[in-house]
């Protein structure tokens, strides 16, 4: 009986508290540029989501330490999704009411869901290195910004790299390339681009899906052992990557012939495989592990030294940390650009930030000045190109650290542009969107 009344009391108290929390979260708005931070620090992908989130938040802190964007300080709030789409949508709804500048969900699933919502709420969506590949076409996807590169870029460059190693793209004829991919929209995104290239160069593409979360790959690697592909492309996320490398070791597939996407080329993917992953290469989204870069040193000096660091000190400069940091930088620069037009020292709305992102022009000089010398190449966006750059390098794991092993590549616009236009056209037709004309773009 006692228990029951206790339970009743508890539930009533809970209902009461819900309403108070709901009301308190409504205000808390000031003259600060608010950056919502959607993260996953728990769950199956925590090991990868954590460093990204730390880099993202550390950069925002760094901007504040340097005096904000033309004097406008940044505020931010984290929201945990656990990589689940419905929690991501909840986070989006929760944070958008606080004057959100730009959302960066770091999940292809959440990106797809938010693509439908962002235009209604007029909040831009940066998906640096992930998301819908066709959203590069800003005329249709006004609010999506797959900055720095899409999966199609990744797929395209991976084939270029394999071709270069083989001594020319024409040498790919008759070869066999296997794609080991995460069985989700994320993993399936590169397939059309790879099929296009397969048609062009006459290589055979073998598709090997791995079910979420990717801890069971024995059958996959048995198939690889049977079919002996010339190269394996690894399109995994989280534990799937390290498992793939371990299985490759266990079945004796040479790691030198494996190439991962930039989400399969960070420290958590290879660290506990150690020497077993030696020789494994992965694409990079411009940057690799950059502990020596100036911006990383700035973070250590201006944020960590003051005891305000988000994660452990050793993590600063690691691959996913840098990815988060650069993602934050792109958002911040979008705001800075927007301020040039809509008034310096003012808080920008989502709509104004969108203009800033669409007219982003980060020259090498600017980037070097911000501490990204040697880390990044220029980014310039436009209405038709929301990606801004497609520079990619390849880095290789030597058993202890990542090191660059190739020159810069760029995706072949001749191959990808028609695909982007076709896919985005199909989307526009489905959604009854009229693509913006060049005149509308200028507004």
């Amino acid at each position, binding site marked *: 009986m006692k228990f029951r009344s206790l339970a009743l009391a508890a539930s009533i108290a809970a209902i009461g508290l819900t309403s108070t929390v709901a009301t308190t979260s409504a205000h808390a708005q000031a003259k600060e540029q608010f950056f919502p931070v959607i993260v996953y620090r728990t769950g199956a992908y925590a090991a990868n989501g*954590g460093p990204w989130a730390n880099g993202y938040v550390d950069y925002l802190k760094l901007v504040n330490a340097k005096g904000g964007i033309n004097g406008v300080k940044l505020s931010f709030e984290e929201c945990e999704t656990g990589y689940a*789409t419905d929690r991501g949508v909840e986070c989006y709804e929760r944070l958008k009411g606080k004057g959100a500048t730009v959302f960066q969900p770091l999940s292809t699933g959440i990106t797809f869901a938010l693509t439908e*919502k962002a235009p209604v709420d007029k909040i831009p969506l940066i998906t640096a290195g992930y998301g819908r590949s066709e959203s590069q076409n800003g005329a249709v996807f006004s609010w999506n910004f797959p900055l720095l590169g899409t999966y199609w870029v990744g797929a395209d460059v991976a084939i270029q790299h394999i071709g270069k190693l083989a001594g020319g793209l024409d040498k790919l004829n008759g070869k066999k390339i296997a794609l080991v991919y995460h069985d989700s*929209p994320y993993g*399936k995104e590169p397939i059309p681009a790879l099929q296009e290239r397969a048609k062009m160069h006459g290589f055979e593409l073998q598709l090997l899906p791995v079910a979420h979360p990717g801890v069971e790959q024995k059958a996959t690697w048995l198939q690889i052992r049977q079919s002996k592909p010339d190269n394996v492309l690894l399109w995994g996320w989280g534990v799937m990557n390290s498992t793939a490398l371990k299985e490759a070791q266990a079945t004796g597939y040479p790691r030198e012939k494996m190439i991962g996407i930039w989400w399969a080329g960070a420290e958590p993917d290879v660290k506990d495989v150690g020497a077993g992953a030696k020789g494994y290469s992965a694409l990079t989204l411009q940057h690799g592990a950059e502990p020596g870069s100036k911006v990383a040193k700035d973070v250590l000096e201006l944020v960590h030294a003051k005891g305000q660091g988000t994660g452990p000190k050793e993590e600063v400069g690691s691959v996913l940390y840098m990815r988060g940091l650069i993602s934050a930088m792109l958002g911040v620069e979008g705001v800075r650009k927007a301020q040039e037009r809509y008034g310096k020292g003012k808080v920008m709305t989502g709509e104004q930030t969108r203009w800033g992102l669409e007219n982003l022009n980060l020259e090498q000089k600017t980037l070097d000045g911000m501490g990204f010398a040697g880390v990044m190449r220029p980014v310039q966006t436009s209405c038709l190109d929301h990606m801004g750059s497609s520079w990619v390098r390849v880095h290789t794991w030597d058993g202890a650290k990542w090191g660059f092993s190739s020159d810069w590549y760029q995706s072949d616009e001749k191959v990808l542009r028609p695909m982007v236009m076709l896919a985005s056209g199909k989307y526009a037709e489905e959604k*009854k969107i009229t693509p913006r004309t060049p005149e509308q773009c200028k507004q």
Partner: protein
Amino acid sequence: MIYRENGQFKTSYTADQQIFTIAQDKIFVLAVIAFAFIGIPFLVDEYLFRAILIPFLILALAALGVNLLVGYCGQITLGAGAFMAIGAYAAYNFFIRIDGMPLIVALLLGGLSSAGMGILFGIPSLRVRGLYLAVATLAAQFFCDWAFLRIQWFTNNSSSGSVSVSNLNVMGWSIESPVEKYLFCLTFLVVFALIAKNLTRAIIGRQWMAIRDMDVAAEVIGIRPMYAKLSAFAVSSFFVGVAGGLWGFVHLGSWEPAAFSVDRSFQLLFMVIIGGLGSILGSFFGAAFIVILPIFLNQFLPALGSFFGIAISTAAVSHAELIIFGSLIVFFLIVEPHGLARLWSIAKEKLRLWPFPH
């Protein structure tokens, strides 16, 4: 004092067999529905609509369906997420492939497809029982996860396997704003809850309960287990399928199979068991508990922390959320194994005698 049924005499069988035999109950429920339709749209902000109320309504509908199968017919299922997926993808295909397909018809057709698959996957229940059946229903779950990822036709050949719908409207009424979405889902829920309540009071519901209580005995007194079990699977899957359609169309707008993963199935079973097996009201309580509690904890814990001047990291909050959520589930199961609905009826019993219990 207020909740007294003295003087309410039933003079006919019809009066005795009404859904709410006590006048106060009837007034209360009607008042709640009226408030939900008229009051809430004026009181609530967008966040509550989109993040809490709409998911709550849709998952309550799904929980209702699961409760018909688990609570009324006694067949434990861990595959409810699969039937949500079938409902959503079938509705999607009807919606985009047939020109001018009305939204409601598409959703109902999605439900019907789900019902058909429900019968198919219900067949093993004729032979396999209890926990064995529960695990076997996971076959449906994993099969559907796979099928919607792999078979391109279902997703209209979208390269990523993710589908989306937009421009929803019912006879010219466009469902875009959160209030409209809320009202749309609420209408569905009210109609389906009424159907469910009446089903469970009718002969078919009595057959289900007989099967649940002891299927051999039920068979002996002339109930056909095949008909009863498969009809329970069909009706339950229909409800769950419609809920799946709403989840995809109205709540997410764009979805992939992961939206209906095995976690969703567990979540639905949780709702039913925490809420109360074999209780329509319980499905609502359970859905409210499971939808609101994690979100509440996620926002309340940092607020609590800052009240005491401690900044709790996001990771710690989510871990604490898991721990408290799990503990509360165990706590409620221990305190009231028959679910929150039972607590409610105890409260009502008390209220009857209040303020003079003796």
